[in-house]
C-alpha cells in the first residue's frame, strides 16, 4: 500500500507540468486555423487513425526492427571487446585513442557514408545504428571493467579464484552499472540514427514518414509522426530504466545508503 502511495505521489509530482502544458495546448489551439499549427484535437484524431489503424505495420515496425537488431548487434560486439580491452592496460592504451577519435564524429554524419557503402536498404540502416551505438557501450565497458578496485582484486587473488572467475564474478559484475549507463546512451543514439537514416533516404519508417509528410504539406500527419517519436523515445527509455533498476538492485540500494 505504501509503495503504491509513493508511486502515486511520484506520478503527481512528475506529471503536473505535462498535464498543464497539454491542457493549455489543447485549449489554445482548439480554434486554430493556422495550417502549420493545427488544433491538438485534430492531431489526436489523425494520430489514432494513423498509428492505430493504418501505418503501424509499414512505418513503425521497420523502424523498431532496425533499431532493435542494430542495437543488439552493437551490444554483442561492444561488450566482449570492451571486456578484452579493459582487462589489459596495454591494449587499452593502443585502442582508446582510436576509439575516442571515431567517437567524436557525430554519428548522424556517418550515415551518408554508410549509404555510399551499402546503398539504401535496411542493411545500411542497421549498420549505421550498430556503428553509432557501439561506441558508448564499448567505452563504458572498458571503463567499468578497468575500474575494479584493487582491494577487491587482491582479495579474489588471495582466495585463489581463477582468472576466469575473477573476470566473470568480480570484474564484470563490478562493471555492470557503468555498462548499463553505456547501453542507455547507446540506445538513445541508436534511436536518433535510426530516424536519421530513414530521413536520408527511405520510403519506409517513422523518419521517412514524418519527412515526406512535411515535404508534402500534410501537416497533421507530420505532427502525428513527431508525437509518436516523442512517445516511443520516452517509453523505450522508461523500459531501460525499469530493467536497470531491477537488474542492478544492489547498486541502487547501496547508493541510496551512502
Amino acid at each position, binding site marked *: 500500500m505504501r509503495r503504491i502511495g509513493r508511486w502515486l505521489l511520484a506520478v503527481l509530482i512528475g506529471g503536473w507540468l505535462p498535464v498543464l502544458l497539454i491542457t493549455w495546448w489543447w485549449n489554445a489551439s482548439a480554434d486554430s486555423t493556422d495550417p502549420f499549427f493545427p488544433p491538438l484535437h485534430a492531431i489526436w484524431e489523425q494520430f489514432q487513425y494513423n498509428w492505430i489503424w493504418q501505418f503501424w505495420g509499414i512505418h513503425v515496425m521497420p523502424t523498431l526492427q532496425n533499431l532493435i537488431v542494430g542495437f543488439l548487434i552493437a551490444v554483442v560486439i561492444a561488450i566482449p571487446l570492451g571486456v578484452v580491452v579493459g582487462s589489459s592496460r596495454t591494449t587499452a592504451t593502443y585502442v582508446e585513442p582510436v576509439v575516442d577519435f571515431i567517437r567524436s564524429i557525430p554519428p548522424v554524419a556517418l550515415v551518408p557514408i554508410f549509404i555510399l557503402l551499402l546503398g539504401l536498404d535496411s542493411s545500411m540502416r542497421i549498420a549505421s545504428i550498430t556503428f553509432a551505438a557501439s561506441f558508448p557501450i564499448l567505452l563504458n565497458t572498458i571503463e567499468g571493467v578497468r575500474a575494479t578496485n584493487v582491494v*577487491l582484486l587482491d582479495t579474489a587473488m*588471495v*582466495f585463489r579464484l581463477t582468472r576466469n572467475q575473477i573476470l566473470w564474478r*568480480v570484474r564484470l559484475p563490478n562493471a555492470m552499472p557503468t555498462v548499463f549507463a553505456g547501453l542507455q546512451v547507446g540506445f538513445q543514439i541508436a534511436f536518433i540514427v535510426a530516424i536519421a537514416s530513414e530521413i536520408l533516404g527511405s520510403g519506409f519508417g517513422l523518419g521517412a514518414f514524418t519527412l515526406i509528410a512535411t515535404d508534402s504539406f500534410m501537416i497533421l500527419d507530420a505532427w502525428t509522426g513527431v508525437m509518436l517519436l516523442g512517445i516511443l523515445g520516452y517509453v523505450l527509455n522508461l523500459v531501460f530504466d525499469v530493467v536497470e533498476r531491477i537488474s542492478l538492485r*544492489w547498486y541502487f*540500494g547501496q547508493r541510496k545508503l551512502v
Partner: protein
Amino acid sequence: MTTAAISIRDVRMDYPTPDGVKHVLGGISYDVTEGHYVSIVGPSGVGKTTLLRLLTGLAQPTAGEIIVAGKRLSGAPEGLAVVLQDYTRSLMPWLTVERNIALPLRNEKISKANVRQRVKESLTEVGLEGSERAYPWQLSGGMQQRVSIARALAVRPRILVMDEPFASVDAQTRFDLEDLVLKVRADFGITTLMVTHDIDEATYLSDDVVVLYGKPATVSDIVSIDLAFPRSQVETRNDHRFAQMRTRIYEKVRGLS
C-alpha cells in the same frame, strides 16, 4: 618441539621509483610458530603492508624467500585467508552475505549443502547468524568486518592474514572484534599474522609482536607476550606486565631505544 608455519628468510623488497630504487624491506627474517598470533607493528610507511603482500603471494620479494608448509611461496598459497582493513571494498556489493562467504569455496570440491553449512557455521562463529540474505552495504561497519572474518573462516584456513582489520570501526566495535578474534583463536588455533597501528591491540591479542623499523626496514625487536590466555579487556590490560611490554614496543616503534 614447535614448527614454523611460515618461515621468512632474509626477505628484501625494492620498489622501482622515478628517482631510483627504493629499498623498503632490508632483510627480514622471522619464523611464525604454528598456531601463534603474531602482530606486525611499525611506523607508518615502514613496509608492513608490503610484507603482508609478500606473505599472501600478491608480490614477489626482490631477494630472500618465504616458506609456507615446507614450500617456497609463489602466488597465493593454499589454506591462507585474508581480512583487509577496507571492508567496504573487500566484500562484493552485488553478492549477499551468503554468496560473499561462499565465493572462495567455489574451487573446493564440496557439495552445495556443505557450502551452505559452512557459511552458516562461520556466520554463527562471528555472531551474525541469520544474516545470509543481507547485502554487505545493509550492515554496519563492524558487521561487515565480521562478514570478512566469516569469509576467511569458511575456507578453514591454516593461516589467517589481516591488514589493520579493525582500523575503520569505532572503539566499542573494535573491542568486540578483538574479543571475537581471541575466541576464534581459542576455537580453531589458526596461525595468524596481523598488521596494526595500535600497540595496545597488538599486545592484547598476540603471542609475539614484531617491530619493523628503519629505511630499509628490519626487525628491530620481537616481543613475546607471555600473558595468560584467556585474556580479558579489563584484567589483561590492567596487568602491570602489559604496561611494560606496551611501553617497550612503543619505544621501539618510535625509534627511541
